[in-house]
């Protein structure tokens, strides 16, 4: 089956790609690997995002990531654990009573503490950037069309969860335009203060309104019998909880991943069973997104990055961490670096998005 010119890449493929890169980032604090993941994600986003309003999500989440890094380092320096190591400087410290053990105010600031905090902040920032990339590359409205009918019980939550970030980005643009027209500040502290409440309020409201309108159009129509509905809902819910616990077990490198995998399999089975059972009868779809070769390749590129990082980790765990004791340059593990580079393949094979205006005129013609 061939791809038509108007058909963008399947949104789930983009989410899988970004999700696998986020998993790879969550396994390492090596700033080289994190930096390469960030660079690859940025490259793919700039080459394959359209000119849709939500394409700006990536930039917004990059800024959020910088904020996270700053907060992480500042909190570590002011209140963090007094990590031993090479002292850079000492802040005046306030002695706290013994019941407040675990909290400090001031004290010696070591290179190890600051660099470790920076790397941990960078890790979170890169994960946020992956999330932003998915929001930039995939249309949240197309993604919503892929949500199975079995998730009806949580349809509002799913809609809000999926569309909230792009709605925030749209909301920021709208509110800034409105403030500019009224001659109020749009940048700096004053601008942000006036921005926060209307943006959050507006984005949530629009997401809920979208959920309501989808509900009105029969997004999750009810299956025939209430008992059947309850059974499938219970199976789906139990499966989702299992998936959550299993994912936590697998992603947390300290836990036994064997149990986690088993829980993921059972949970995934329950979810799929529940969804299949609930979606008897079929909905018709207008111009459905198809899963073609390019989708497989994009997902494979993301999986390659995770495989490379995990393989490096099982081979030489030190290569994935910023060396702190003694302080040194991070390792450059070739396998992990090359596999993360493979994740840039979507910038060549994913279909180029058609600019919104061109698409409109083409559709009208």
């Amino acid at each position, binding site marked *: 089956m061939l791809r038509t010119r108007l058909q963008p890449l399947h949104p789930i493929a983009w989410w899988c790609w970004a999700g696998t890169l986020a998993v790879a980032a969550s396994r390492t604090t090596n700033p080289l690997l994190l930096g390469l993941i960030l660079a690859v994600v940025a490259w793919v*986003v700039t080459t394959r995002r359209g000119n849709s309003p939500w394409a700006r999500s990536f930039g917004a989440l990059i800024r959020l990531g910088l904020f996270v890094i700053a907060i992480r380092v500042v909190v570590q320096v002011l209140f963090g*654990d*007094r990590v031993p190591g090479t002292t850079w400087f000492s802040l005046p410290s306030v002695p706290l009573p013994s019941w407040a*053990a675990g*909290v400090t105010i001031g004290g010696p600031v070591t290179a190890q503490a600051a660099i470790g905090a920076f790397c941990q902040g960078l890790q979170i920032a890169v994960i946020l950037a992956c999330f932003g990339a998915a929001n930039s590359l995939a249309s949240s409205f197309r993604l919503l069309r892929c949500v199975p009918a079995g998730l009806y019980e949580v349809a509002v939550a799913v809609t809000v969860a999926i569309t909230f970030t792009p709605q925030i980005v749209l909301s920021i643009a709208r509110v800034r335009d409105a403030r500019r027209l009224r001659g109020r500040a749009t940048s700096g502290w004053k601008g942000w203060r006036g921005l926060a409440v209307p943006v959050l309020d507006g984005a949530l409201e629009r997401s809920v309104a979208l959920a309501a309108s989808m509900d009105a159009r029969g997004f999750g129509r009810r299956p025939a019998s209430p008992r059947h509905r309850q059974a499938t809902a219970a199976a789906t819910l139990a499966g989702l909880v299992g998936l959550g616990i299993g994912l936590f077990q697998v992603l947390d490198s300290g836990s036994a991943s064997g149990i986690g995998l088993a829980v993921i399999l059972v949970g995934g089975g329950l979810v799929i069973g529940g969804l299949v059972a609930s979606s008897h009868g079929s909905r018709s779809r207008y111009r459905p997104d198809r899963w073609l070769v390019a989708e497989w390749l994009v997902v494979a590129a993301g999986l390659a990055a995770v495989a490379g990082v995990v393989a490096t980790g099982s081979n030489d765990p030190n290569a994935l961490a910023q060396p*702190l004791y003694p302080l040194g340059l991070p390792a450059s593990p070739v396998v992990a670096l090359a596999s993360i580079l493979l994740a840039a393949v979507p910038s060549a094979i994913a279909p180029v998005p058609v600019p919104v205006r061109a698409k409109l005129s083409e559709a009208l013609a």
Partner: protein
Amino acid sequence: MTGDRPGSARLPRAEPTGAVVTRATRLFLGSALALLVTTVATLTATTLAAQPAPAGKASPAQAGSPTCTIPARVPKGQIVVVVVADFGGTNGRVLVTCVLVEPGVSGAQVLQAQAALLGYPSPRYAESGLLCAIDGYPTRGCGNQSGAHFAYWAYWHGGKRWQYANGGPGEWKVVRGDIEGWRFEPDGSATPADPPPRAASSAAALEVRAGGTAVTTTSPSPSSGHAAGPVGGSRKGTSPVPFLASVVFILLIGAGALFRSRRANGRAT
């Protein structure tokens, strides 16, 4: 934290300082706290277990008690801190070292000085700042968890009796006459109920004597215990070339992305 310190004339009382637990220790202490709060029975049991433990363990330590000797003349501006390192196990080795350091340095720096003095590898820490290894033991792992138990180095402060440290060695500032106790717990609960180091807790009982010519250590059974020896060769230096190459490469990709994004923005407006 408010641990008893030796109060002899030679070793004056120290000032308690605010201490901070490393993140992992905090985790351990947090779980211990939850246990204590939920069951009063656990609370009493823990207290009961903690109280007689030092007295019970003290008697074997008194018998062949390891000691260390301090030099006759301590250089000006330096103090003697006794480091007791108990490598755990049933017949494990106990190292007592008199270390010369400047007053006010952290417990972590005292450990570093002890390792340097004995020619052992420097203490190893996890990213969180949790102490993983003293004198190269254990060679792998850090606070490994098995069930509700952890294989970790417990930190104690000496005095009339051993006092479980509230904070990490990075926070503790040593003063003259401090006794720093460490015991490896292969299967510890990460609470003050864990057994203290198997050596006397006060400087007097450790028989810290002036008059020796050098700082020495003794241990009851040097052959048993940990296998780590003095450091052989120097650490292999890593070449900065692959690091720099990677950095340049990443910056190139990032600059390319930035350039494309700028160009796209310019076209859009």
